[in-house]
């Protein structure tokens, strides 16, 4: 099942990476502090990931934006090739058709129809939709260009060589080469003093450099290197997401018409055969569509789905790093212990990808922590019971040998166990192994000590 979620994640990452500080200002507007709308682009893109084809007016209303402002942003994104737009003249009936389609998508969302809009006759409406397939290409191309530009500059490729006359300090560029060439030897010669010219070496971005000295050049080189490094690390999540998405079929909604027909199909609106065919064509990608739609649905999902999400990402982060979250979505038969274990890992995950887990608030964290503690105690109790039984059996035959050394050893072991917890690998199995090992050993006392310390 192709899921749209990884693509949405890609869009959100790309939005934050590239369109964070895009200010959508009209050229003629005074720049007031009130009009500072940087970050708006990100909000719009985020909103679009939760929708399919949406009428721009509706989107504007949902985002509490002025429609002109929104249109400016969308036009920008259209130029950036992230968004496809469609304009058409339509009557209220046409608008209704779209609403029906939208409602069909967001099956449990509230009806989108607004009474006021129905009265407007024959208006040009604009619709917009994310073009996922193109977004992948655009983002990949963008990253490629960024890297290439820096690399070229570092390799001093594509820069015009400059020459300098050591005696009279006159500067020439390679454009003057034809005049400078001498037929007596193989060097360039100064036009004024006929001295041999030397190439200015280690030239970086000569256009910007002007006549900077070595220090400036060096600094610039360092800056470029630094920039390169920062690009690498800052775009890492984005690149990783691109990798994941690479082999997945991009969700396609088709043009506005096909999308509408496909979603209206059930309502017997228009030619049923056409609706069917377009539906089939969408079938392979279209299955998850109904799950996304109105913002409201998303919020609900967040409300009771967070626990699930947390464990998912946690599991992902620890043992199934390569397995993307959408693959284990339905097979989530996690035991309590597992949940508890992974909560720590999920926290780690959060730290590393803080951007994505913004939604997860502290309250949900608490829930997870509580779960974790519960699970932990349960497991401990189980183990204690086991130990108790074991000890009883052993006490029959042996006397207790306890010395400080063994205690220390156990302390070590206990520590290791703790680490295992942190790594969120299969801690309880390890604990069991420990117990088995100690069966042969002579340090039952440690368990008493351990119990005391933990509880």
């Amino acid at each position, binding site marked *: 099942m192709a899921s749209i979620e990884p693509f949405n994640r890609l869009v959100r990452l790309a939005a934050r990476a590239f369109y964070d500080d895009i200010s959508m200002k009209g050229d003629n507007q005074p720049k007031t502090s009130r009009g500072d709308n940087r970050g708006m682009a990100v909000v719009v893109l985020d909103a679009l990931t939760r929708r399919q084809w949406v009428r721009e007016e509706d989107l504007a209303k949902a985002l509490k934006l002025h429609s002109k402002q929104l249109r400016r942003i969308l036009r920008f994104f259209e130029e950036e090739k992230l968004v496809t737009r469609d304009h058409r003249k339509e009557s209220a009936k046409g608008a209704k058709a779209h609403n029906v389609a939208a409602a069909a998508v967001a099956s449990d969302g509230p009806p989108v129809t607004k009474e006021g809009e129905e009265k407007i006759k024959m208006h040009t409406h604009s619709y917009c939709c994310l073009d996922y397939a193109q977004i992948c290409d655009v983002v990949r191309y963008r990253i490629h260009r960024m890297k290439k530009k820096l690399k070229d500059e570092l390799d*001093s*490729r594509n820069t015009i*060589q400059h020459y300098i006359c050591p005696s009279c300090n006159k500067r020439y560029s390679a*454009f003057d080469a*034809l005049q400078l*060439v001498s037929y007596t030897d193989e060097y360039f010669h100064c036009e004024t003093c006929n001295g041999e010219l030397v*190439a200015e070496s280690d030239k970086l971005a000569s256009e910007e450099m002007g006549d900077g000295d070595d220090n400036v050049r060096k600094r610039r080189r360092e800056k470029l290197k630094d920039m390169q490094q920062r690009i690498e690390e800052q775009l890492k999540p984005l690149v990783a997401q691109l990798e994941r998405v690479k082999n997945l079929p991009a969700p396609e909604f088709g043009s506005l018409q096909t999308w509408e027909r496909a979603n209206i199909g059930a309502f017997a609106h228009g030619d049923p055969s056409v609706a069917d065919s377009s539906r089939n064509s969408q079938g392979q990608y279209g299955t998850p569509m109904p799950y996304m739609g109105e913002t409201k649905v998303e919020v609900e999902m967040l409300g009771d789905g967070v626990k699930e999400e947390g464990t998912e990402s946690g599991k992902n982060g620890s043992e199934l790093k390569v397995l993307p979250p959408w693959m284990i979505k339905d097979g989530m038969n996690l035991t309590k212990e597992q949940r508890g274990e992974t909560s720590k890992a999920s926290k780690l995950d959060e730290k590393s990808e803080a951007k994505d887990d913004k939604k997860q608030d502290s309250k949900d964290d608490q829930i997870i922590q509580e779960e974790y503690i519960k699970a932990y105690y349960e497991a401990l109790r189980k183990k204690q019971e086991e130990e108790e039984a074991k000890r009883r059996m052993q006490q029959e035959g042996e006397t207790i040998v306890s010395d400080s050394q063994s205690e220390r050893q156990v302390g070590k072991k206990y520590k290791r166990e703790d680490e295992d917890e942190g790594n969120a690998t299969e801690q309880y199995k390890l604990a069991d192994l420990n117990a088995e090992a100690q069966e042969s050993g002579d340090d039952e006392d440690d368990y008493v000590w351990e119990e005391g310390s933990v509880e």
Partner: protein
Amino acid sequence: MFFHIVLERNMQLHPRHFGPHLRDKLVSKLIKDVEGTCSGRHGFVVAITGVEDIGKGLIREGTGYVTFPVKYQCVVFRPFKGEILEAVVTMVNKMGFFAEAGPVQIFVSNHLIPDDMEFQSGDVPNYTTSDGSVKIQKESEVRLKIIGTRVDATEIFCIGTIKDDFLGVISDPGAAV
């Protein structure tokens, strides 16, 4: 890049050409005057392909010359930054090499030649790879990329590079013989 465009020019014709072949004279003079010239705006005029329109002549007072406004179609060649060209090497020296692509002179400086190519002075100065498999010398044909153009009113000069994928020698005169 080549373009087929329509240009206009005021031609002055000596009174001795006035007669039944005035038009032919005008066209041949136009071809002689224009072909091979270079304008910064349009590039090199490679060939005139046709005369669209010859306007009314105006007799210059005092000299008797007549000025005709002539519209003509022509093929022009104008190099652009980023364009890939094939050119013939005309001169190799320590600083790089010069090449010609038709009327255009291109200079490739030595830091835009791949690092594994070394300058070899001598009878035939050339740039050669360490294993000797690739050699750039006079008359070599190279594929290069233009990274800069200097356009004057009557001259276009280009800077090229062969330090990129798929650029460099495309036929070696030494190897062909």
